[in-house]
């Protein structure tokens, strides 16, 4: 197996994170925005793992592993909660467009 430099991994994570932010800023659909949040979560979880590999290539750090597992679990809960909220919002406002959900504006 050829050795892939660590920068590639970091760049990949950053790219995924940037895509998530782009989706959050640019997309109007609430469900798409949720997917963007999920992407950002994935990117940060991956960063944890990669940092572990970078610092100590031959050891699986139990701290990192537990953080990532907890993060994934919490992330899925958040996703479930967010989707249910989205459904409720859709039922009330009959729209998925976040730009129309600006009731709290001045």
């Amino acid at each position, binding site marked *: 197996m050829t050795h892939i430099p660590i920068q590639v991994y970091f760049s990949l994570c950053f790219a995924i994170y940037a895509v998530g932010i782009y989706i959050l800023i640019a997309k109007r659909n609430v469900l798409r925005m949720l997917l963007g949040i999920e992407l950002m979560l994935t990117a940060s979880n991956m960063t944890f793992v990669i940092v572990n590999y970078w610092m100590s290539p031959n050891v699986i750090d139990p701290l990192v592993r537990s953080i990532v597992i907890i993060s994934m679990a919490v992330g899925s809960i958040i996703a479930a909660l967010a989707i249910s909220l989205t459904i409720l919002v859709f039922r009330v406002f009959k729209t998925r467009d976040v730009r129309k959900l*600006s009731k709290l504006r001045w």
Partner: protein
Amino acid sequence: MLLYADVLIWLVPILIAALSPFIAKVSRTATFALSIVGVGFSLACAVSMIPDILQGYVMYTPNGGVLGEVPFEHVFVWLNLTSITGASIGIGLLVDSLSVFMANVISFVALWIFVFSVYYMGEEVDIGRYWFWMNLFVGSMILLVLSNNLIQLFMAWELVGLCSWALISFWYKSTNPSPDPKFATEGEYNAHCGFKALVTTGFADAFFSVAILLIGWATWKTYGAPIFSFKQLMADPNFRWVGELAKTGLIPIFTLFILSGPFGKSAQFPYHEWLPEAMAGPTTVSALIHAATMVKAGVYFVARFFPIMLEASHQYPQAKMFFIIVAYVGAFTAFLAASQGMVAKELKKVLAYSTISQLGYMFLALGVAGLIHHYEHAYLYGLYHLASHAVFKALLFLAAGAVLHTVHTKYLDEMGGLAKYMPITFWTMLMGALSLIGVPPFSGAFSKEGIITSVYELGDTVLLALAVITVALTAFYTIRMLGYVFFGHESEHVRHIINEHGIREESIAMMLPLIVLAISTIILSFMGPAILEFIESGSLIHAFEPHTLLEYFAEPFKSRMFYISCAMIILGALPSYYAFVKKTIDVEKIVSQNVIVRALWKFLYNRWYINKLYYLIFLDGLKRFSQVIRKIQTGISNVNIAYAVVGIVVILVLILL
């Protein structure tokens, strides 16, 4: 000292405060009784501390051990920061002659105001809330004066401010017509007044807290650990921490910031606008909080901080700025508020302006004390004036409360001719008023005379002129107030009340505090030497010897200033007497015909336009600013996230740079 009197003195009122809302559900009488017993207990504790100070003497713990000599501190570790800063922040109680003096004044005045409250607040429904805040106030005020360090003092400082807010807007549900057309009901107006007090003092206290942190920073730089205790701040004879501030050029900022707190709490010049509005609360509250005790917290703090700054200013002359600011702001405020008191339309507002003015005298005395060679005279007379003002102003407010309770109006021109219906109120209020003007046998005369003599010794023309002119103004507005309330013909409003159910003196329980306080104003003038000697050296050895008293009473007559201020009193009192008591001069006519007088009247009545300016800057200006700013808030999630990303990037860049 009673066992643990220094702890119980503030703990008992606070505990009773916690209980009173629940007890009020069961029995109103029990709430009254418990509160009065609680504050009576505080008074007993405070009095019991006096012998300890006098004997310069030890305190015995239950197992017979000795805690320490007077002034002693009870110190407990509060925040253990040893691993971070090398020291821990303690809390504690400092019992010395100054704090014992303050505790006695507070609990004595509070006791009689509580007794007065029983009938004054007799028809009030929400009695639990009233006693909760009143008891909490007394407890935290005593805690404030007994604090041994700045952090704890600041916490108690904010607590009394909170009580003040809650009690000013006590009648926030009132649906009577508002005195200010900007508000729909009186309740809304009261709530606004409470918030005005809270916001103004809070604004001042923000600077104050920065100054406290500056002390912590300077001591940490110098000694390796932050020091907030008054005693430890005095411990270094070289005051290297002040040197640290001087080295970095922070002394002016530090002085302004540390004085900001006392000026806010004691309603001095830049922050004085909240006190006249604070009269929206019940009169007992005005008497206790906005005349007798809470507004004295600022004076107390300056007096407490005085020795530190005095010693420091010997090493670093720049620190003298502290006293210069205190003296000038005090003198200016005394004049400013007294001039506004001359035209006030409400009975309680006259007293409020007079309170601000008298507080200015106390600050003037403390400031002058730091500037002259022998500081004792001015310093002690400033504190003596604090005590005598606490008593006579509480008396004036309670008498005003009795009047308001009878005639159901707060406007001066709706009163009149009450002297023959309410003789006890009239005579007691007259005694308070004479004390305020500064007529001898009453305590105010001697204390104010001491202050003016000290200013004369300093030889500063501006300060002396302001102090002396204010004497004339004080005499003018006091006589004017009495004339409006008690003399002349009954107004239509009063005649209406007489026809309906007649006007008579309130019950004896309401008159008792008035009589006691009126007698106290005379007793206090005989106690003058005792108070001065007690604060100075913690002893009463010479205070009651005949020649000390004789010297004390003869002292004013030896000074040239006494005759000048007598002349000023007559100068102020005579026109006022003919205009408002005898009614031979028609003031209304003069004001309406003479352009200059009318312009002056308008200028004074609008409080030199300072209040309007503050509203323009801090309310309207802020509103207009936020009208612009709020356009940023679009309510769209995408845009908000974009802002967040921009913020993250900016912070990242700042960190990386």
